[in-house]
C-alpha cells in the first residue's frame, strides 16, 4: 500500500519546505518515501506542487491518485481535485496559514510524533515562530489517515536526490573544481557543491563563468594541469559545450560533464523532465572520438556513476558524459547504503602540450597522412580498451524475476517507476536497466533473444534507446512495444503498471 500527498501552492508560499519536513519526518519514523517537485519557470505566484509518496515498502516513484491534498492556496484544490481518492483528506483553511501550520497538521494526520517535527524545525530559521505555527496546526487537526506504523524507526535511511548523489560522488572522487553556468535542472549541483564548499576541510571550489563555452574550456584548462575538474549543464548549455567536447576528444584531456536533461527542443519546458538527450550525449561534437556515456537511475547510482565517470575520464583521458534528467536530479528518495567508491589515479602528472590540432607525440600539430591515420588507429585502440574496462563494471542491471520470459528495458530515472509498477502490478517480468550507453553492453542481445515479450519504457518521443539497441545489436524493438511519455512528466507507477499489463496481453 502506498500513500500519496500533494502539497501545492504559489511559488514563495513554501510548498517545498513543508514537503521536506514532512517527508523527513516519515523517513525518521521508518517509512520509505519519494517526492518529486513540479514547478513553473517563475519566482512568485503560479502553481507549484510536490507529490510525496510513502509506504512501508521501497518507494521510488509517485502514483497518480491522491490520499491527502494540502492546499496552500485555493488554486491547488481546483487543479488536483479530480485525482482525489474516495475519502481523501483535503487540508485547507478559510484563510491561508503560515506554511508550518500545514506541516503540523500533516504530522497529526499521518500519526507522526511532534518531536520529530520539532527536530526538523531546529534546522531552519525562525524556530520560535515555526514551532508555534506547527503546534497550532498539530493541535487543531483532528483527522487521521489511520495507517499502519513501521516496526523499526531506526533505519538510517537518507532522503536525497540525484543532484545530491552526483555532488557526493564527485567529492568522494577528489573533485577540485566544479565549473558551471546556471541552468535548470543542473543548477542544484552547483548550489549543493557551493554549500559543501563552506564546510571545514572542503577541498573543492565552485566557479561560475560567463557562458557554458567558457565553462567547458576552463574545465579542460584545469584538467590538463592534473586537477580533477567537472562541469554541469542542461541540454541548451551542452549544445554550447560541444566544441569543447570535441577538443577533449582530440587533445585527450580528461573531463566529466554532467548533462541534466529537460524537455527540448530549445528552451522547451525549462523546469520539467525528459530523456530526450540520449542522442545528444552519444553523438554530439564534430569528428570521431572516444567518449563514455553513463546514466544513473537513482541517487545512489548517481554517486557511484559519477565516481566511475572520474575513473574513466582520468584513466583513458576521455570525455565522460554523466546523463541524467530533472526527475533524477530533483526527486528525493531513500538511500539505504553508502555508495561504492573506487580509487582514481591521476593520468596527467607532468607538463605536456595538448593540441586541438591532430598532433604528434610531442603535442605539436601535424598534417601528414600517415600520422593522422595512426592517431585515429591509436584512439580506436583506446576505445576498445575503454569497452574492455567497462566490462569490469555493472554496465546493466537485471531486476525482478530473472527467469521471466517478459523483458522490460529502461535507462536512467524511469527505474523507480518501473520497479514500483512491477511490484504493485504483480507483473512477472525481468527488468533490464542499462547504465552504460557508451560503451554499450552488447551482450544484452542474449537477454533480448531469450525474451518472449519485450517492452521498452522511456521519457522521450522517439525511443532513443531502441535506436541505440538497434545500432549496437541489430535487434529491432517494434513500435507497439514502446511505452513512451513525452509531456515533461515522469511516469506514475500505477498508470505504468496498467500500461505494461495492457501491452503484455
Amino acid at each position, binding site marked *: 500500500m502506498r500513500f500519496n500527498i500533494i502539497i501545492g501552492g504559489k511559488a514563495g508560499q513554501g510548498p517545498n519546505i513543508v514537503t521536506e519536513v514532512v517527508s523527513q519526518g516519515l523517513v525518521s519514523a521508518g517509512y520509505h518515501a519519494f517526492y518529486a517537485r513540479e514547478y513553473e519557470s517563475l519566482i512568485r505566484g503560479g502553481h507549484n506542487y510536490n507529490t510525496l509518496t510513502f509506504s512501508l515498502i521501497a518507494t521510488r516513484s509517485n502514483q497518480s491518485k491522491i490520499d491527502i491534498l494540502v492546499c496552500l492556496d485555493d488554486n491547488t484544490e481546483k487543479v488536483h481535485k479530480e485525482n482525489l481518492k474516495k475519502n481523501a483528506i483535503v487540508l485547507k483553511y478559510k484563510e491561508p496559514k503560515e506554511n508550518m501550520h500545514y506541516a503540523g497538521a500533516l504530522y497529526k494526520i499521518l500519526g507522526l510524533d511532534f518531536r520529530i517535527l520539532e527536530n526538523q524545525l531546529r534546522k531552519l530559521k525562525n524556530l520560535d515562530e515555526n514551532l508555534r505555527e506547527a503546534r497550532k496546526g498539530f493541535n487543531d487537526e483532528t483527522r487521521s489517515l489511520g495507517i499502519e506504523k513501521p516496526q523499526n524507526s531506526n533505519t538510517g535511511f537518507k532522503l536525497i536526490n540525484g543532484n545530491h548523489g552526483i555532488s557526493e560522488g564527485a567529492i568522494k572522487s577528489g573533485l577540485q573544481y566544479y565549473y558551471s553556468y546556471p541552468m535548470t535542472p543542473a543548477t542544484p549541483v552547483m548550489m549543493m557543491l557551493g554549500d559543501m564548499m563552506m564546510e571545514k576541510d572542503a577541498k573543492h*571550489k565552485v566557479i561560475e563563468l560567463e557562458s557554458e563555452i567558457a565553462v567547458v574550456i576552463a574545465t579542460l584548462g584545469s584538467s590538463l594541469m592534473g*586537477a580533477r575538474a567537472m562541469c554541469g549543464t542542461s541540454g541548451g548549455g551542452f549544445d554550447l559545450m560541444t566544441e569543447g567536447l570535441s577538443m577533449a576528444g582530440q587533445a585527450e584531456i580528461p573531463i566529466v560533464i554532467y548533462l541534466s536533461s529537460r524537455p527540448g527542443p530549445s528552451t522547451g519546458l525549462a523546469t520539467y523532465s525528459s530523456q530526450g538527450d540520449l542522442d545528444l550525449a552519444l553523438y554530439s561534437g564534430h569528428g570521431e572520438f572516444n567518449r563514455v556515456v553513463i546514466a544513473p537511475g537513482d541517487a545512489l547510482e548517481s554517486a557511484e556513476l559519477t565516481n566511475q565517470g572520474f575513473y574513466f575520464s582520468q584513466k583513458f583521458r576521455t570525455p565522460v558524459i554523466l546523463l541524467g534528467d530533472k526527475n533524477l536530479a530533483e526527486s528525493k528518495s531513500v538511500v539505504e547504503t553508502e555508495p561504492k567508491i573506487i580509487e582514481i589515479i591521476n593520468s596527467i602528472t607532468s607538463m605536456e602540450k595538448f593540441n586541438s590540432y591532430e598532433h604528434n607525440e610531442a603535442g605539436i600539430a601535424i598534417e601528414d597522412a600517415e600520422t593522422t591515420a595512426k592517431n585515429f588507429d591509436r584512439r580506436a585502440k583506446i576505445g576498445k580498451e575503454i569497452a574492455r574496462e567497462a566490462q569490469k563494471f555493472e554496465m546493466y542491471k537485471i531486476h525482478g524475476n530473472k527467469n521471466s520470459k517478459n523483458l522490460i528495458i529502461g535507462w536512467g530515472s524511469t527505474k523507480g517507476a518501473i520497479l514500483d509498477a512491477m511490484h504493485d502490478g504483480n507483473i512477472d517480468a525481468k527488468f533490464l536497466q542499462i547504465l552504460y550507453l557508451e560503451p554499450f553492453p552488447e551482450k544484452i542481445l542474449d537477454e533480448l533473444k531469450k525474451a518472449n515479450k519485450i517492452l521498452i519504457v522511456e521519457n522521450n518521443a522517439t525511443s532513443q534507446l531502441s535506436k541505440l539497441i538497434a545500432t549496437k545489436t541489430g535487434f529491432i524493438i517494434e513500435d507497439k512495444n514502446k511505452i513512451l511519455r513525452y509531456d515533461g512528466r515522469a511516469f506514475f507507477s500505477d498508470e505504468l503498471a496498467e500500461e505494461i499489463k495492457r501491452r503484455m496481453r
Partner: protein
Amino acid sequence: MAKQSKSKKPIKTNVSIRTNATNTWCPGCYNFQILAGVQNFLENQMKMGKNRDDFSIVSGIGCNSKIFDYINLGGLNSLHGRVIPACIGIKVAKPSQNVFGFSGDGDSYAEGMEHLIHAARYNSNFKYIVHNNQVFALTIAEPTPVTEKGYKDKTTPKGVKLAPMNPIKLMLAAGASFVARVFADVNQVQQVLEEAQKHKGFAFIEVIQPCIIFHADAGYKDKLYNLQKSGHNKADLKAAMEKAEEWDYNGVKTGTKIPVGIFYQNDNKPVFEELI
C-alpha cells in the same frame, strides 16, 4: 587494470625553449619578430632561475597561434576564440603558474569577445597577447572587427562599411588592469612582456602585426611614438583613454600618431584565482 592511457611524452625540461617544429609562417612574416621577442623573454626568465615547468602557453586558432608549436612549453593549443577560458582554468588549478595566451584579432575581437571583456573584469593573473594583423589571414583575407573602412576582399567586394572597433578603449572601459600596445618588433615585444611579467593581474598586450600578404603595412612603423618616453602617466585612466583615442585603427593619414607602450596599469586590483 590496464596501464594509464598516454598519447604523449612529457616535455623535457633540460632542452631549449625552442622546438624543432617546421615553421610555416610566410617568409618575412612579422610573427617571427613576435616569436623572437617571446623566446628572448622566456630565455631571460630561465637565466634568472625560473623553472620551465612554471610556464604554460595557450593559443587559439589562426596564424598567430602556430606559435604554440614553436615554443617548447606545456599547455594547450585551444579553439578559435577560446584562449582565455583555458588560461583561466590553468590559473585556477595552479595560481602560481606563469600563463601566456596568444591569440589574433579574429579570436580576440570576433569569436572570443565575450571572454575578453570578462577577462578584464576577472583580472586573472595571466598575460594575453593579441597578434593584430587586422585580417583573417589563414582563411585568406576576410575582414575582422578591426579592419579599416573600405578594405576589400572577395567576400566584401563593395568594401568594409563598418568602422573598426578600438580594443584599447574597450579594455580600459572593461577594467583591464594592464593595457599595452606594441609593434611587432623583437625588442618591443620582449620589453612589454618583461613589464607585464612584473604586473600582478590580467595583462592585455596588443601587437600591431601587419600581414605582409593580405594586409600590408600601411606605414604604421613611421607613425609610432612611445607613451613612456612621452611622459604618459600609466596610472591615470583618463589620460589612458585619451591616448587610446589618438588612433582609431581606421588606416593612417597625414598626422596620424600611433601610441605604443603601456596605456594603463593598476597593480591594486584583486586577482580572480585569489578571490574564488
